[in-house]
C-alpha cells in the first residue's frame, strides 16, 4: 500500500473518532442545560474542553456561565464553537471536512460504497445550521452525527478486507480514542486535577465513554474514582478503555508488519511492549489490593503519543533507500 494512502486512512479515522467523541460530549452537556445548576453546567463545559485537549479558561473564564440568564445563550455560543465554527480547527464540521478530504485522497482504495457513506454524513452536517435545531432537540443532531459515524465504521467493517488498509484505519481510530479518553480521565481524576468535582460528573464521564451501563453492572450505583479508573483504563473488554485500545493497536500492527517475532522490528512494536509493561505492572499491584492510581495515567498517555510518532516515522515518512 502507498505510504500516503496509509497516512490518509489513518488520519481519516482519527478525525472521525474526534468528531464522534465531541458529539457525545456535547450531547451530554446540552442535555443538562435544562436541569443542571449553573455551577454544574459551567463545570461541565470546563471538563468538556479539557477532555478535548483545549485550555478551558480560553473559552469558559472562571465565574462566567454561572448566571441563569445567560446559561442558554452562552451554551449556544459554545455549542456552535464546538460544532460548526470554521475558525475552530477542532469543530465537528472541520473534523468531518478533514476526514472527508483524507477520504477523497484515497477514494480509489476505499471504493465507492465507503466513500458515499462518509460523504453523506458530511453533506448532512454541512447542510445543518445550529439555529435551526437549537430550539427543538439539539441532542438529536449529535445523536445523528455519532450514529452516522458508527454506520460508516459498520460499512467499512463489512465491506473491506481486514488487511493493511483496514488496519491503518483501526490504528487511527484507537490512537485517537486512547488520547481522548486519556485526556478526559486526566481532567476528571486525581488530586492534581484542576477540575475537582462531585459525584454528578462521574455518570457524564462514563456515558461519554459508552461505559455507564457497564459500570452499573460491575460496581452498582456508587461512583468512586478508583472504580472508574479500573473500568476506563484497565478493563480489556470495554471498547473505550485504554487497555482495549492497546489490544487493537497490537492486532492492527501485527497485520501491517507481520515480521515473525525474533526479527528486528520497527519502533512501534517496542512502544506497544512498553505499554504492555505499564498495564501489567498495574495488574500486579491490583492483585496486591492496592487502590487504582491515577498517576499511572501520565506514562500511559505519553506512550500512546509516542506510538503515533513512531508509526509515522516507520511507515510513512521513512528515509528513502531503493
Amino acid at each position: 500500500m502507498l505510504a500516503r494512502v496509509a497516512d490518509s486512512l489513518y488520519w481519516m479515522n482519527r478525525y472521525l473518532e474526534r468528531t464522534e467523541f465531541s458529539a457525545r460530549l456535547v450531547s451530554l452537556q446540552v442535555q443538562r442545560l435544562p436541569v443542571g445548576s449553573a455551577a454544574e453546567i459551567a463545570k461541565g463545559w470546563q471538563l468538556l474542553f479539557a477532555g478535548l485537549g483545549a485550555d478551558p479558561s480560553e473559552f469558559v473564564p472562571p465565574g462566567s456561565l454561572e448566571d441563569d440568564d445567560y446559561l442558554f445563550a452562552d451554551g449556544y455560543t459554545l455549542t456552535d464553537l464546538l460544532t460548526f465554527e470554521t475558525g475552530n480547527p477542532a469543530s465537528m464540521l472541520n473534523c468531518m471536512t478533514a476526514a472527508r478530504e483524507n477520504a477523497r485522497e484515497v477514494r480509489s482504495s476505499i471504493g465507492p460504497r465507503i466513500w458515499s457513506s462518509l460523504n453523506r454524513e458530511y453533506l448532512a452536517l454541512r447542510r445543518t445550521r445550529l439555529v435551526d435545531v437549537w430550539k427543538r432537540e439539539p441532542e438529536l443532531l449529535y445523536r445523528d452525527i455519532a450514529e452516522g459515524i458508527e454506520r460508516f465504521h459498520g460499512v467499512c467493517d463489512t465491506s473491506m478486507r481486514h488487511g493493511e488498509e483496514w488496519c491503518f484505519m483501526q490504528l487511527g481510530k484507537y490512537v485517537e480514542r486512547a488520547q481522548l479518553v486519556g485526556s478526559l480521565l486526566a481532567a476528571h481524576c486525581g488530586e492534581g486535577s484542576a477540575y475537582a468535582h462531585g459525584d454528578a460528573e462521574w455518570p457524564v464521564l462514563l456515558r461519554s465513554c459508552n461505559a455507564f451501563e457497564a459500570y452499573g453492572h460491575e460496581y452498582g450505583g456508587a461512583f468512586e474514582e478508583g472504580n472508574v479508573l479500573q473500568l476506563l483504563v484497565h478493563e480489556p473488554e470495554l471498547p473505550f478503555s485504554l487497555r482495549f485500545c492497546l489490544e487493537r493497536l497490537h492486532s492492527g500492527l501485527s497485520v501491517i508488519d507481520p515480521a515473525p517475532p525474533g526479527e528486528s522490528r520497527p519502533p512501534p512494536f517496542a512502544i506497544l511492549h512498553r505499554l504492555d509493561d505499564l498495564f501489567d505492572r498495574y495488574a500486579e499491584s491490583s492483585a496486591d489490593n492496592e487502590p487504582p492510581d491515577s498517576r499511572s495515567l501520565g506514562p500511559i498517555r505519553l506512550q500512546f503519543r509516542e506510538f503515533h510518532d513512531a508509526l509515522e516515522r516507520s511507515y510513512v515518512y521513512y528515509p528513502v533507500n531503493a
Partner: protein
Amino acid sequence: MHADPTGATNDAGLGQPGPASSPLFGGYEFEERYHDEMFAAPGQPRPQCHALIGALTELPADELGSLQQRVNRALLHEGITFTVYGDEESIERVFPVDCVPRLLLASEWEHIERGLVQRVRALNLFLADVYGRASILRDGVVPEDLVRGCPNYRPEMEGVKVPLDAYVSVCGSDIVRTHDGFMVLEDNLRVPSGVSYMLACRQAIRRAWPRVFRGYRVRPVEQYGAELLRVLQSLSPNGESPSIALLTPGIFNSAYYEHAFLASEMGIELVRGDDLTVEGDRLYMRTTRGLRPVDVLYRRLDDDFIDPEAFRRDSVLGVPGLFEVYRKGNLAMANAPGTGVADDKAVYAYVPRIIRYYLDEEPVLLNVETHLCREPEGLAYTLENLDEVVVKAVGESGGYDMLVGVHASRAERKAFAERIRANPANYIAQPTLDLSRAPCLVDGRVESRHVDLRPFVLHGAETRVVPGGLCRVALRKGSLVVNSSQGGGAKDAWIVEDREWAGR
C-alpha cells in the same frame, strides 16, 4: 418553427393520442436547421424513440421532476463532481446529468466506430513518423514548420522507442452531427477526460429507467476499465505482471474524481508525484513496506508537468528524472509524451491528408472546414467573417480562449481580432456548426439542447471503441458550448440495434 413535435397538434407521427397530447413536450422547439436526435419532423418521432417517448409521457409531471432529483441526489452522495477553477465558494460541483438518454442506432455507431479506429491508427502512425523518420514532413504533406513549431511538439521524444508504437493509447474525440453527417470537431490525444462521467451517467440513467433500458438492449460500456487495464498491461516493458499506477495531480484537479474512479476500477494505485521517486534507472512508488517499482504509468498530467528536469522546471506535480527512465525504456507511459502535436487545432486541418498518406484510405468521418490564421488567406477570411465563425486557440482546450462570433458583441469581436492579429499562428477558425439537438428535461418539461459526443478509443495491440460515449449537452438555452467548465452537462448515449425498430 415552434411546434409540439410529438404531434400534439399534428399526430401523424405517433398515431396515438395519449403521449402525443402530453404537455411535457409543449415547449419543445423543433428547428429544421438542426438535426434533431429524437424527431425526424414535427410530430414524427424517430422510430427508435417511440418507447422512450412513451416512458417519458407515461410518468406524471411530478414523478419526472422527482426522478431528476433522485439522479442529482445520487450523484451528489456518490461525489461525482468536477472542479471549477477560480471558484472559491465551492470548488467541487456535481456533474449535471440529464435524465433523457440520447439514442444512436447501431448502424450510425458503426460508422463512427470505423471512422475513429481509422483516425487513431493514422494519428499513431503520424506520431511515430514525426518523432522518427519524418517522411510525411519531407514529402510535404504536412508543413514541417507547423509540426516542429507546435508548442506541443516535444523534441525530447525524437528517437525514443515507444512500446507497440502506441503513442496514443487513450483518445477521446469530439463528434458532432449536422445535416451533413457526423464530423470530428477535435481529437483529444493528451489526457482526455470524461470517461468516468460516461460510466456514472450510465449507472444513474439505468437506475432511473430500468425497464426502458432493458427493453432497448443497450450496448454495454462497463467493460471500459478492464479494457483500459489490458491496454496498459500490453505496454509494459518489464514482463507479464506489470506494476501499474495512475498519476494524478491530486484532489484539486478538475478531473480528480475520474482519476480515483479509474484507479479503483482497474485495481491499480492512484499516485501523486510525491509518491514516486527515481532511483537508478527505475521509477518507484513509496509504500508502507519500502519502495516498489512501477512499470507502466497512466499519467493524467500534461507533458509540461511530468518531470521538472525534462520539461517545466517549476513543476511540483511531477517526478524529477521520470522522463529519463522512460527514455531508457524502463517505463511505459500512456499516453506518450508529445502526443499533443497531433491534436493541435492547426494540425487537425491536415488529418484527412494524414489518413490518406498512411492508410491510403478516404477518411470515414468528416473534418470540419478549418481556416488556419497562420496562412494569409486563412487570416483574411477569419477577420472578414468574425461574426460568423468560431475562433479557437490552437493549444487550448476546455472551451478557453475561444470566440463564438455569432454570440459575441461587436466589442468582444474587436478585442479578439486584435489578439488574432498579434499572434495569428495561435488561432484557427471554423464555421459555426449547426450542432444537433436532443431532448432534455428542463424545469419539468422537455426542451431541446445542442449536444456532441465524446466516444473513447483504446489503442494497444488492437484498437477498440467503447460503444457509446459521453454525450455532452449545452444546458444553457441556445448555447453551443458543451464543456462542463462552461455550463455544460451530460446525458447517457444508448447504442440500440437498428432491427428492433425497423418498420415501426
